[in-house]
């Protein structure tokens, strides 16, 4: 388990480093990492807006050059910078142990969360992983988290504290009603939902007859000819995904669906865009 954890940790570190490099290739403004433009006036570096002076404004912000050119007194207001709080809620239930041996859904979820956490720590964001009480301070804390997350344990309810960006990672394969109940408890915040599925879950590539059972349960459903129900199953799976998407849209959340063999680097960029980090 230790080996597996450090393998995933290294994979996540590579991913974060790659992501960091890719992000640095983009033209960036000069504001410090770890801070974000809050689209409010403050003491940041970049200029937020120029506006006319009204009594009560800070007179230190008067732009004398601009004021001399016009009749009014002009202020140069800067952006306010705040520390971002990110929450990463990962589904660690037994259902996540599905997928190819070397890349289960759990592996993918952990790698994704760890990479995002490392990237966030790197930016001096305050990042909290599911099950942890305090935000992460060092990269090595992430490794500790991976070790616990590799053990299957019951699905935790998403954090009730408030975040600037909350990311929910899991397979979300329970009936939509149960999922909606859970999501209703989540404090309103910009939220991204990442659904990770294994290719075998989508394609059902089995032949002949088979008995399917949910994780950790003995009761099973016998299918005599799996290829015969493949299309119907797939249609139901897609309907479920549409329902998830609709539920997210109703809440103003972002929804991403990936499989275990997709490229996580692109996904990370997309999720960070949801939270307004990457340009």
């Amino acid at each position, binding site marked *: 388990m230790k080996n597996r954890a450090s393998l995933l940790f290294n994979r996540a570190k590579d991913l974060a480093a790659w992501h960091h490099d890719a992000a640095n290739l983009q033209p960036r403004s000069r504001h410090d990492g770890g801070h974000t433009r809050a689209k409010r006036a403050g003491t940041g570096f970049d200029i937020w807006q120029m506006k006319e002076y009204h009594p009560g404004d800070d007179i230190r912000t008067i732009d004398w050059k601009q004021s001399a050119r016009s009749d009014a007194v002009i202020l140069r207001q800067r952006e306010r910078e705040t520390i971002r709080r990110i929450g990463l809620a990962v589904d660690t239930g037994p*259902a996540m142990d*599905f997928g190819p041996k070397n890349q289960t859904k759990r592996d993918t979820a952990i790698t994704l969360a760890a990479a995002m956490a490392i990237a966030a720590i790197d930016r001096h964001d305050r990042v909290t992983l599911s099950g942890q009480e305090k935000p992460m301070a060092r990269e090595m804390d992430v490794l500790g988290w991976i070790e616990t997350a590799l053990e299957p344990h019951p699905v935790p309810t998403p954090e009730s504290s408030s975040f600037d960006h909350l990311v929910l990672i899991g*397979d979300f*394969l329970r*009936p939509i009603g149960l999922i909606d109940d859970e999501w209703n408890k989540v404090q309103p915040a910009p939220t991204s939902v990442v659904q990770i599925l294994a290719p075998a*879950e989508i394609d059902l590539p*089995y032949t*002949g*007859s*088979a*008995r*399917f*059972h*949910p*994780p950790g349960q003995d009761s*099973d*459903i*016998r*299918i*005599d*000819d799996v*290829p*015969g*129900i493949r*299309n*119907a*199953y797939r249609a*139901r*799976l897609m309907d*479920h995904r549409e329902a998830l998407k609709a539920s997210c849209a109703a809440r103003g959340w972002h929804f991403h669906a990936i499989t275990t063999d997709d490229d996580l680097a692109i996904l990370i960029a997309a999720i960070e865009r949801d939270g307004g980090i990457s340009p």
Partner: protein
Amino acid sequence: MIPFSFAHPALLLALFALPLLYFLLRLIPPQPKRIMLPATWLLEGLTPETRTSSTIPPWLLILRLLAAALVIISLAGPTRRDDGAAAKTTSAPLLIVMDNGWASAATWTAQQAQAKILIDRAARDNRPVLIAQTAIPSVTGPHARSRADDARQQIMPQPWPGDSAALVPLLPRGKFETAYLSNGIDTPGTATLANALDGPVTLYQPDTATTALLLRRSQAREKITIAIDGANDRKTDTDISIQAIGHNGRQIARQTVTLPANADSEAQTMDIPLRDIARLSIAPPSGSGAGAIYLFDDRDVKKSVAIVTSEREGASTPLSSAAFYLTRALDGVANTKLAPAEAVLADNPDVIILPDRAALPAATVEKIQEWVESGGILLRFAGPSMARGSKADDPLLPVALRPGGRALDSTLGENETLTIKSFSAEGPLADMTPDPSITVRQQILAEPSPDLEQRIWATLSDNTPLITAARRGAGHLIMVHTTATPAWSDFALSGLYVGFLKRVVSMAGTRSNVDTDDKTARPALLQPLRVMDGMGRLTDPGPDVKPLARDDADTAAITREHPPGLYGNAIMKRAVNLGDRLPPVMPVTFNAENLTIKNYVAEKSQDLRGHALMALMALFLLDWAGTVALRRGLLSIVLVALVFIPAGARASPSDRDFAANVWLAYIPTGNTAVDDETARGLDVLHNNINQRTSIRTAGVHSLDMERDPVILFPMIYWRLTADQPPLSATALSKLQNFLDTGGLLVVDTRDDLSALSASGDNLARQIETLNFPPLVPMASQHVLTKSFYLLNKTMDVFPLHIRVEDDSQPQPAGEQTAGLSGIVWTGDDLAAKWADQGSMMNPERQDVAIRVGINLIMYALTGNYKADQIHIQAILERVGDR
């Protein structure tokens, strides 16, 4: 009888299990698998829309059962066998007589195969086997099967004639059946053996087209006439190719002789200068074994003799000129050349004759001294100018001379003339007889000294020396104390003069390996130097080989003690050839009662495992196509077919393309991974050649050695693997022709110097049968290091293990490929390095390999152009500009 046999017949019992397998498959359906699926709730209430076939259609079932049957059959090791007649049911022991004399090299495979069949059959009938051979007369056995097979494999063809009569006393008592495996040529004593045999005899004989041929020679003065001798029952004219191999191991000429149908011999004169030939051989496939090879010795090699002369001499007074007498005496013995003293070493002669010269320029003296040290022979004659001006410390004299001549009849007033009294028994002239009619009137005396006695080769009647000699390094200084003309004596007019000169010349030409002392100068015994084995390869002599008495060197019979080969020492070499000693070749006759004559049924047993596996592959393909068709419909069959068609239908370049363009060719090893890498590597090289040089290569071609016109390729790359199948005789002769016509063969042992030894001797032996000079590590100045890129500096950093032909060996005159290596031998695994593109590990190394490759192709195309010093100026300027 069934024409099949199986290596493991018991495995065939498994065929009975096939119907059982069928019923088991039909009766017991497989248990459904239990699969964890997180979204199991999505499956609730689903029923299959269409039911796909869960039972296989009968034709597919038959196909699969057939495949299973084939697996069992091929595991059982099927062999098609044709033993000839069915076995006789006698229980008498079987005596197998292998005739393994010189002529058996040609028929050995057939003889061995027949012996194996006979041993196997005897083992089936539980009969003991005795094995006899004629070349080393012996009978072993009775053996059980495995022992008999071992004994059979230990018998090898030998290069001397067998002796069947010698087997008679060795035969066990009692009745037995005999199989006499002949090589088609009559062996002495066969009649005696036939009489001694009790019981049925079967004489096996080869197809007459494969019997051995014997190369004989009748010598003319300048050219040689060779005769091919054989027990020839060939129904048609046979073209036989004869190769002449030079001293450097390279083929120098090839001539075709047509042996008319049913003719026993055919003679033909070959137009080859004798001194260049080391051996003649009948090229495979017509010739094999020791009889097909004729060795030449130093009697055939004409030495070159330089006679020092001055302008004044010669033209005006021929009869008083030393050069005139010497040239006449050496006519036909050696190539003579007149030269002034300064230029005498220009052609590196074997012997220098210095008639009556006292002083030479100091520089010349030094050079001649060096030349003698390295094995040259300097022969000096006395004369008036020597009598006048000779110096006591002349380094080119064997003994110190007393100043002033001694004129016996006039100056000293002695009224007698001297005659030759004796030749020193220690010297090389010991066997010569003094001729009393020769008188010596004037001489130059030697200064007496303690070691004078040892240096005398011939003494005069008053015990003064006539001929003295001394060894200097590997060479000799010889002094004749009278003139080379009749001025001082009659010596120059006698037959002894000619004999003496001949002897001196024959001593020359041994400049490389002389480590004998004076005693061996006239050896009584000729030691074996290199002898032939039964397959006609020259090898080092084994412990059985005895020295040959010098006097019988030309008459001794060829036996186990004296196999054909080269005998001699540093001074003289004698070739012992089967063709010189054997009586006319006769077909085998065997006059026994109760005789059956049969032909060999060589190579009739055929391993069918390959065929079974091929059929299996085809069945699997059909099965796959069938399954795909069931699942996806007929369209997919078409797609599947399309996958296979392009591979077969891809247009291959024609001979015309090969001739018109430069192709990079390689010899496939049969190992797909290795060949793929080679092809990729050469492709990288091909791209680089086109990018970096003005050569436009057309592409990479995997050679089909049987069909492709090998000769059209400038360079052939051959990677060796341990498990590589040997090349066929056709392929080898094509390769030889390729080398002889200036092709470049790059042999790559792939970092694996053991590849050769591991692969057996198969491949090593094959490469040995190619004619090429010895290989030496490439010198840093070799043309290959500068044919395009200047590599000699690079090689300090990335050492390359390249061996090329030794170009220091003298090249036969007129050879166009002089100085060029036909074979480049490397252990660097160049193809792997070329193919290693994009490797971040060591890009420089790949680049070096590509540079070497470009230099190789440049070398193949431009030869020694860059070695030519004329261009050095231009090359240096270009380097300077850079």
